[in-house]
């Protein structure tokens, strides 16, 4: 279970990686390396041609993975190998269109069938009740995002349609490393925690061990994406780079 995997770690860090970069085989090796390095879970981002919630680093990663030939078919051939190679939960992050293309139900069922435990969809419909029920029926956690702008009544709605953990977006904006995170994150996370028993993890902008420490003072987990992908994209040995980068974020 995703929520247990996060709770059972003192220092729950969830790395985000783009699938298919530099290729699907290496993605599998990166997953094992991050798992060995102590990740609580891994978020696997599916590349999309028009990633409107992403900053320059993840846009570039998406673009390069597509150029390198990423397809849904290729992903499906590899997923089972990835999930069975590790004990930690794998979560898929995808814009809704690639999931919809193969049929929402069919695609989510295939993910589940291959051992994926959760999905994050940054552009899911505003009224996501049907999608939540679909995911619950399939047995895959629908992880929802709460933004700094989210109103109290909307928070209630989102949290009641959420499983696995609540993803607290730290900043108004797109993904990408920030030198400073807003003060309000702590009160935002506390407000969410007061409304749910689910773990609350902070994501967007986190790139240093110091920031991870700061966030873990009040949050149950932290998601690190752009920072790791920037390192992976620049490295001659992406597997080793991913491992080292993750270790540098600090250990239990």
């Amino acid at each position, binding site marked *: 279970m995703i929520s247990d995997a996060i709770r059972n770690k003192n220092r729950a860090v969830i790395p985000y990686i783009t699938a298919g970069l530099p290729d699907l085989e290496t993605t599998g090796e990166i997953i094992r390396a991050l798992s060995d390095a102590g990740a609580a879970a891994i978020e696997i981002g599916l590349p999309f041609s028009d990633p409107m919630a992403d900053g320059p680093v993840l846009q570039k990663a998406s673009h390069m993975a*597509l150029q390198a030939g990423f397809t*849904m078919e290729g992903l499906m051939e590899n997923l089972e190998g990835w999930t069975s190679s590790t004990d930690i939960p794998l979560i898929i992050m995808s814009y809704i269109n690639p999931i919809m*293309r193969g049929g929402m139900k069919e695609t989510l069922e295939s993910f589940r069938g291959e051992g994926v435990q959760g999905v994050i969809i940054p*552009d899911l*419909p505003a009224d996501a009740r049907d999608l939540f029920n679909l995911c619950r029926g399939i047995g895959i956690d629908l992880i929802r995002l709460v933004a*700094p*702008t989210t109103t109290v009544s909307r928070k209630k709605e989102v949290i009641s349609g959420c499983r696995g953990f609540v993803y607290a977006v730290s900043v108004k904006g797109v993904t990408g490393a920030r030198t400073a995170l807003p003060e309000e994150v702590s009160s935002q996370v506390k407000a969410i925690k007061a409304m749910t028993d689910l773990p609350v993890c902070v994501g967007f902008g986190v790139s240093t061990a110091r920031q991870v420490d700061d966030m873990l003072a009040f949050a149950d987990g932290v998601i690190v994406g752009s920072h790791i992908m920037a390192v992976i994209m620049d490295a001659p040995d992406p597997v080793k780079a991913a491992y080292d980068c993750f270790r540098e974020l600090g250990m239990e």
Partner: protein
Amino acid sequence: MKGYFGEFGGQYVPETLIPALDELEQAVSDSFRDEIFWDEFSSYMRDYVGRPTPLTCAKRLSAHYGLDVWLKREDLNHTGSHKINNAIGQILLARRMKKERIIAETGAGQHGVATATVCALFGMPCAVYMGTEDIRRQHINVERMRLLGAEVIPVESGTATLKDATSEAIRDWVTNVDSTYYLLGSAVGSHPYPHMVKMFQKIIGEEAHSQILEKTGKLPDAVIASVGGGSNAIGVFSAFIDDPVELIGVEAYGRGNGKNGASINFGIPGVLHGARSHLLQDTSGQVLDTHSIAAGLDYPGVGPEHSYLSTIKRASYRLVDDSQALAAFRLLNRLEGIAPALESSHAIGYLEQYAKEHEKTTVIVNLSGRGDKDIHTVLEEGL
């Protein structure tokens, strides 16, 4: 469900934007019920934009095709296209919402110019996102925007055209959501944009409806308009939707080699830029590269209401390719002394096919904009 046209439309956006869409929806519903708002809109339409635009009887073009062709002259609007109708409407809303900064995307540059214009008019800072490919081919409009005081931000990602400019505008909006109003240029995007943009463009159809009755004493047989995102088309269609009038949208067929902007003809329902509608995409759900000689039609999606009108068969969507549009551009110059925008040239270009199946019928073609911006492109192709 809220904000859907049948199974199309909706709100598929990052969570950060949900309160902004709610706020916009509230402002739209308050303003649309307020007579003072519409009075203000009408006075700008009349005294600033120069409406009503004429409905011109195209005598020589009619003789050429054996039809009775009327042109709705949106090219005569201030700034040269229908885009100004929507820009005025939305900036009045943005002011009511006390927003401090305006952003927009643009393809052909017509919407960018319209937005920069209304920002100058109301003294508001303005940033316009534009793909570098479009900056190259619509250079005159880039200079116009800069003269008007807008910042033109080049977008190099993806195909460096309208879809990428739109994604970049959305990223700006997510980042500056409190202060910034996103002045979207077509009947696309999340609810309430498609509905709101239609309400501002409806004036085209309303005028044309009464003008044609006045001039011919009867309704037309068909109304023809080009479809990029679909704002000029939905604007003119909406006034005829309950009448026995054929509604024909014209999509860009590009060079006819598979790359085009014809979402309804070749797309599959999917989600891009916040709404579900027909989308040009591959088997993995990746959005396809598009091509049209008309920058304003070079877009892989389409407004959700057009997807709906096509599904219920109330409107049909036909194809005109680059060379047919260029031929129409030249023809209208020679026969009527009018240079149409390359987008509008697609609507004119459809008459060639239409005339093969019809005789002496009365048609209104929405001449959505003027072609000065395209002379460079047309000359490259040779007169």
